[in-house]
């Protein structure tokens, strides 16, 4: 099986000149679940935006064996499902159903398949009944679930989730954890939620100031109080 994600010596500056990534390298095997942790501003979101070519820095990014280039962004975006931190950015359509259908529709699939996939995706996140609802009347937890459905409907093989449990109450958070547990895809999730990491992610990548500063087994890092503290992390 091809390597799911391979990033080599990635550098990136925002247009305002602010550097965000300084030589990031990362390799994720197919089927792996990796947590990306680190303080605010470490560059987690910036790195994630590189994984489907929304941002293009200097260095090599390969996804499912393909080097990212302008010729294959369409395929790459169908492979990598990027879920933004704020579901209000992800859910921009008038109704839930239209949002879930947006991906498959714009991939150019036939309408029958679009419908079938959208329904399956809503079912997978336990929101079948929400299709005709208007997004702004939903709770944050519901919005987060639907945001995940918007990439499941694209049949993404690699899920890239930016802070999937941020801003959720305990019950909604538990719901998302259970949902993620049941998904078969390769997952890379950024988070500050170390309980989530302990439960779902055997591997942890710590970023700080635009660099990967540690990459290894979660159990070892969670026992290393000094390492966690050095990068603004705190065990609950």
């Amino acid at each position, binding site marked *: 099986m091809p390597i799911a994600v391979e990033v080599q010596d990635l550098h990136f500056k925002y247009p305002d000149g602010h550097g965000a990534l300084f030589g990031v390298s990362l390799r994720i095997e197919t089927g792996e679940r990796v947590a990306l942790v680190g303080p605010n501003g470490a560059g987690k979101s910036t790195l994630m935006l590189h994984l489907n070519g929304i941002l293009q820095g200097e260095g090599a990014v390969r996804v499912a064996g393909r080097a990212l280039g302008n010729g294959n962004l*369409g395929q790459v975006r*169908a492979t990598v499902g990027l879920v*933004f931190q704020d579901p209000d*950015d992800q859910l921009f359509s008038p109704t839930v159903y239209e949002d879930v259908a947006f991906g498959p529709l714009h991939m150019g699939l036939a309408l029958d398949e679009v419908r079938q996939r959208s329904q399956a995706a809503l079912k997978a996140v336990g929101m079948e009944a929400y299709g005709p609802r208007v997004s702004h009347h939903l709770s944050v937890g519901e919005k987060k679930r639907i945001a995940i459905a918007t990439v499941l409907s694209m049949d993404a093989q690699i899920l890239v989730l930016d802070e999937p449990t941020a801003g959720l109450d305990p019950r909604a958070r538990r719901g998302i954890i259970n949902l993620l547990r049941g998904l078969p895809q390769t997952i890379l999730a950024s988070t500050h939620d170390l309980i989530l990491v302990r439960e779902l992610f055997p591997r942890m990548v710590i970023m700080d100031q635009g660099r990967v500063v540690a990459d290894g087994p979660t159990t070892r890092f969670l026992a290393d109080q000094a390492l966690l503290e050095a990068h603004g992390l705190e065990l609950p």
Partner: protein
Amino acid sequence: MLHIDLADQYRRGSSRVHRLDPRVKLAGAVLFIVVASALPAGAWGAYGLLFAATLVVAALTGLGAGFALKRSFVALPFALAAISLPFTVAGRPLAQFGPLVVSVEGTVRFASILIKSWLSVQMAIVMTFTTAFPDLLWGLRALRLPPALVAIVSFMYRYLFVLADEALRLMRARASRSGAGAPGRRAGGSLWWRGKVAGGMVGNLTLRAFERSERIHASMTARGFQGEIRMLATPVLTDRDWNALVGWVTFLAMTALIGFVF
């Protein structure tokens, strides 16, 4: 979280009007408004027919006949733009106030404009109260309005709430920092201070809106958007939709005929 519900006029229901295809409702309402505005001044019979039609439609919606009627008075202030007509249109004098002469022709034209705009507003109200906004947008798309235009309205609808929520939070933050200090001093600071804070808030909101639009665009791009918004299936109109449409067009054509001929 508490949030703002500025624009949701839609009232859930399952009446015959609610269940009509949004395209039929949109086209029907627009046609009604076109006929109402095109009718000549003083076509009282035709106005009466249109009024009867609004009553029947309102009754069919199950919202009650008075529902749209009550809300339609928002049209009145706009009609006042025509208030000078009775004085400026030349014709037989009806009354005289000092140097101002009220003409019969002018009064007829003024009353006609008033009635026509009031009828049009009633029909627009019935349509927006019986069609969910997403369906309305879909209807606009299906009726071949420029996709970019419909997309703009659709984004406005979606993000007006988000932006309004953000504004609400900022306003709360200001309110909670403007307690009354020493006795005798006004709560909320000086006018200058409040002006400064309000200016900052507007700037802050604009910046947030810009940043959000960038993130939304990224999230659309991530899902395969390449500049062209595609549309989900367009179901065919049912017999019921066709019947309603044909009946409505026939009625409006007759009304127009009556208005112009008699």
